[in-house]
Each structure stands twice: as structure tokens, then as C-alpha cells.
């Protein structure tokens, strides 16, 4: 299950750590009342968001969602732009038009921004893959969705269409056991979301979503297959949502044991353990990376909080493309 060199693994760790530090900071800003509107935490999803994105090439396209902070970062959206977006500033990706991680799209970085209606960004992501097919470009498109999304009709329409078109398309399902307050067994009568691939002739695989090496290896394989004309894949990453659905949600409906169990499997701690076991890095480097991440995030907070608000006079600009 190793598809990453030691150096790459350290890079992956840096992204995961930055994701965690930024995520923690967002949570604390909101708890302090310094946020605007609502926000989401992707705590626990770092291995998926980073591991899968890291397997993509620069010309590939990805449609991340609300738990995928790490993906935005890996693709090149800076913490400054993300925080400014979350705080509704003119310097945010959407210039104050869309909320938290919604709408964080940037074609120059190959990112399709999502809308709340889940999983509506799956189909544009598939469309990107169909455009690559049409133009005979060796590019791949990837979409992230949750367990909840896997019960929607659109999820199935998209998988089926991807299979019929043999599109270079990879779907990463982040099965974090809950859709808002609704546990898996109230959402579906199957054990593995990967089984949904069979309904459409889409190759499917299950992976430990808290093991970044495993996530990367499986995704990299799916991407390679897609790139060489082998069609779409579905990858189910098993994980756990470690905070509430959104910032205001205390998630009292989640049994405490479940959180304890999954805290033990924290993806970042897991990777650190691997580092020590395999003697890849010294503790000092871990410390250093942590500090670097905190500096980046400190800077981003300052940047975002001192950024100006959008000009109300710009309200009606940009609805239409010129």
C-alpha cells in the first residue's frame, strides 16, 4: 500500500498538518464570535482530502466539498483566500458572494466550486471528464462526496453516465458515518457504499480513510486507470466526522465511544506514528512543521480580518459572464 516516497510523505504530512491547524483556527474563531455565518470542520478527513488530491496532476480537475479543506490547500488555494472567503471579505475567493467553503472554485487551479445542493458538483466534475475525453486530453477529474450524498439520485445518475461514457473520472466517497444527525443505518440498508459501484459497472474499492498512504495508493491507481482509458472508479473511504455537522452543532446524537474510538485513529497522529516507526523524521521536524503551519495560519487570520468588506455597489456585478 505504499505509493509515496518518504519525501512525498513528509509533504503530505505538511498539507495535512496545515489543514488541521487551519481547521482548528476556524473553529476557534467562530467559537470566539469572530466568524461570519456558519462554517464546517473537516477534522478527521485530512487523510482523504489531502491523500486523494495529492494523487492528482496539475492539469487534472477536482470538485471538493465542505469537508475537504485539505484538497483546496493542496490544489493551491491559500489559507489567506480561504479565510477571507469565510469572513465574507472582498479578498476571498468569491468576493463575499458565497459562504465558508461553498463556491471555492478556481479554474486556473482546476477546482470546481460546490453548491449546497448535494452532490451537485459531481455532475460538473463528470462533465469535465467528458470534455477531456472529447478533446483527447490525458486529464482526469475527481469528485468528493459524503455518505449522505451516495443515497441521492444524482450520485447514481452520475456514476451510470460516467460508466457508459467510460469517462476519466474518480469519485471519492467520504463515509464519515453521519449525514448531519442521521447515522448510516437510517440512510441505507447496505454495509459498504462501495457496493453502489456494481449497480453501474463502476470499479469500486474500500479504503481506510484515516490512513493517508492507503488513500493515496488506491486513488493513484484509480487515476492512472482513468487516465489510460480504463473508465471511472468509486473509492469508499471509511472515516468519522469528528465535530458536529456545522459549527453550531454539538452533535449530542453521536455516541461518545464512537468519537473516542476514532480519536485513537486520528489520521495525523497515525502518520506521525509511521514516521517514528519507520524512522523517517525526527520529532524536531514535526515541531517545525507545526510552527510553520501556525505562522501561515496566523498570517491568514490577520490578512482576512484586515481585508476590506465588499463594496455594496458591486452587488449586481458578475452575475453574467461578459
Amino acid at each position, binding site marked *: 500500500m505504499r505509493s509515496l516516497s518518504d519525501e512525498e510523505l513528509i509533504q503530505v504530512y505538511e498539507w495535512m498538518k496545515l489543514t488541521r491547524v487551519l481547521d482548528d483556527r476556524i473553529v476557534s474563531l467562530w467559537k470566539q464570535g469572530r466568524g461570519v*455565518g456558519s462554517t464546517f470542520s473537516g477534522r478527521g478527513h485530512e487523510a482523504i482530502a489531502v491523500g486523494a488530491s495529492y494523487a492528482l496532476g496539475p492539469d487534472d480537475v477536482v470538485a471538493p466539498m465542505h469537508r475537504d479543506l485539505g484538497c483546496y490547500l493542496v490544489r493551491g488555494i491559500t489559507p489567506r483566500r480561504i479565510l477571507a472567503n469565510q469572513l465574507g471579505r472582498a479578498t476571498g475567493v468569491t468576493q*463575499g458572494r458565497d*459562504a465558508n467553503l461553498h463556491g471555492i472554485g478556481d479554474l486556473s487551479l482546476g477546482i470546481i466550486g460546490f453548491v*449546497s445542493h448535494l452532490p451537485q458538483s459531481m455532475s460538473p466534475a463528470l462533465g469535465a471528464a467528458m470534455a477531456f475525453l472529447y478533446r483527447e486530453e490525458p486529464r482526469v477529474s475527481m469528485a468528493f462526496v459524503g455518505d449522505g450524498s451516495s443515497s441521492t439520485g444524482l450520485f447514481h445518475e452520475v456514476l451510470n453516465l460516467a460508466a457508459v461514457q467510460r469517462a476519466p473520472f474518480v469519485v471519492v466517497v467520504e463515509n464519515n458515518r453521519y449525514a448531519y444527525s442521521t447515522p448510516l443505518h437510517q440512510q441505507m440498508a447496505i454495509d459498504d457504499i462501495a457496493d453502489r459501484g456494481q449497480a453501474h459497472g463502476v470499479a469500486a474499492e474500500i479504503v481506510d480513510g484515516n490512513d493517508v498512504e492507503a488513500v493515496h495508493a488506491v486513488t493513484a491507481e484509480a487515476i492512472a486507470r482513468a487516465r489510460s482509458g480504463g473508465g471511472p472508479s468509486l473509492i469508499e473511504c471509511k472515516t468519522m466526522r469528528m465535530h458536529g455537522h456545522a459549527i453550531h452543532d454539538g452533535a449530542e446524537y453521536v455516541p461518545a465511544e464512537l468519537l473516542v474510538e476514532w480519536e485513537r485513529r486520528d489520521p495525523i497522529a497515525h502518520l506521525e506514528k509511521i514516521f517514528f516507526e519507520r524512522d523517517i523524521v525526527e520529532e524536531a521536524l514535526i515541531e517545525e512543521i507545526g510552527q510553520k503551519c501556525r505562522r501561515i495560519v496566523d498570517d491568514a487570520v490577520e490578512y482576512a480580518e484586515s481585508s476590506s468588506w*465588499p463594496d*455594496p*455597489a458591486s452587488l449586481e456585478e458578475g452575475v453574467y459572464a461578459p
Partner: protein
Amino acid sequence: MTPNGSSGERSVASEEDRKLSYIEAISEALREEMRRDEDIIVIGEDVGGEFGGAFNVTKGFEDEFGRRRILNMPMTENAFIGAATGMALMGLRPVIEVQFADFITSGYDAIVQFAATNHYRWGGAVPWVIRAPSDGGISSGPFHSQNPEAWFMHTPGLKVVAPATPADAKGLLLSAIRDNNPVIYFESKPLYRSLKGVVPEEGIAIPIGQARVAREGTDVTIVTYGAMVHESLKAAEEISSQGIDTEIVDLRTLKPMDCETVLASARKTSRILIVHSANRLVGAGAEVAALIADEAFESLDAPVRRLGGRDVPVPFSPPLEKAYRPSVDDIANAVKELVTW
């Protein structure tokens, strides 16, 4: 308070007790109806368990009514609204919660194509209610702030209500549940906890199709509904000091619309402003304006004016959203312009 309390005591006590928030009034109406009628079931995402929905309207309902009556759904609006139609055809009265009004589009076919047309086509009645938490003004961004009521007013076979007060929230929900047709009940999120009011304990149903004169006046009429009723009331207070006497018609039901009340007020004041938070363009207000321009034309002394959301997705950032929505100032200024026209 006991039912045996003397009437004097009772009314004092109850006036105190019976101040409910807008959202408490919704919960209470639903709970009372469910106690009364076993055919009523609740269906939607996250409505069950300890949680009781994204806004906790059905908190505690699973405990009281059991899991069989409080159906937690996977994220499948099209399927579960359609399923509610089937339940309704079998004689149940499902109350559907869409988590935000914005997500009603994910079940659009189930609503506008199937449920709305069914009774006309083959006589099967579809007595369900969709509770749709709508409207913005609270930095929720383009997908948690929408006001899609106009789409459903344009759709034959639906009824559409939009209460502006706790008493109406309760009374219209009672009527919506008891109605034998598909009713979309638009809740005003900005009023959920900010607005309190006296709500009769005994369920007093507010008839569907009746507007309410929220303020009597002689100089100008504001036709409005939902959260904008309160912005309009504030504006009316503000300008009353300048000697302008504003009448405010709270539509309460958008479909079927109470044309008589609207026209009577238009004929009385001769000057009309229509206000809503939904996109102005082809919104509910366009219909009101068209109605007045046709049937009260002779009485008009000034252009029929409309204030509504701008023709952009509801923006997230506070300064943008503020510019997007009609404000008390916008309303006051529009009224002043009409009066001096």
C-alpha cells in the same frame, strides 16, 4: 393555568404564558395536530431522534410520537416528497420538512409535476404540507436564504402560505395540515427566534386565502408578507411622524391570493408599494402589481411600486446581503416618494 381558572385570571396568566416565538408556535401547532390526529406523520431529514430537525422544530417528537410517526429520511428529497404523496393518497397527512426552502428544488418534480396535478387529473387528493424554512438576512449565503414562493404560485394545484406572526404561524399550519391539498408553508427563518407574540392555546385555524390588514392607514398601502411585514411596520411607524398614514396588507396566503383585500386597500389609498425579500423579477409582487394595474386602475393616483430582492443569487457577506434586501429605509423612501407623487 388551569382550565378552571376564573376568566379574568386566565386571560392575564395566558397573555403572559402564551407569548411564543414564531418557531415555538410552529412546533406547538404541529404537536397539537399530531395529538389530535393519528394520520399526521412527520417526514424529512434529521427530523427524528434527540435532534428534531435542523431548527429543532420536532425536538422531542420522536419520544412522544414514536419512530413510526417521525420518519428520518436519507438525503432524497425527490423520493421522500413523492413518498409523502403516496402516503397522502392512502389517507395519511404527512408534514414534510425540507431542511431549508432552498432544497425544495431537489424534489421539484415530485411537487410540481406529480402532487400538484394529481387531483385535477384523476381525483386523488394529496393532503400534505411542506414546511420550508425560507428567507435570509442572516449571512447564510446563496443556498440557505432563498425565497422560492413565486415558482409555486405559478404552479396550478398548489396552495402557498407564508405567515408573518407567531399566531399566524400556528393558525396557518393548522389550516395547511387540515387542507386536502398540497400546501407549501414558507417559514421565515429571520423571525424564528427574534419574533414573539401572543398565540392562542386552543388551535385557532387561520383560513387559507385570507389576507390581514396589519396596520390601518389612509395614505398609502404596502402589500407584503413574511419578514417584510415587520420591516414595513417599522417604516410605517417611522414615517407616521411625518404625517404619512400607511396601511399594511399582510398577504398571509400567496396562493390562492386574497385579491379582494388587496384591491379594497388599493382603492382606499390609491397608492401602492409591494415589498418582499424574494427576487423582485417575476416574483409574487409582480402578480400583485398586475392585479392592481388591471382591477384597481381607476383608483390609482401613482405608479405601482415594488421593492424586492435584487436579481442576483442571495449574497453571503453582510454588506452585500444588506444591499440585496429591501430595508426599512428603502421602504420608507419608496412610500414617501409615492405619497408626494
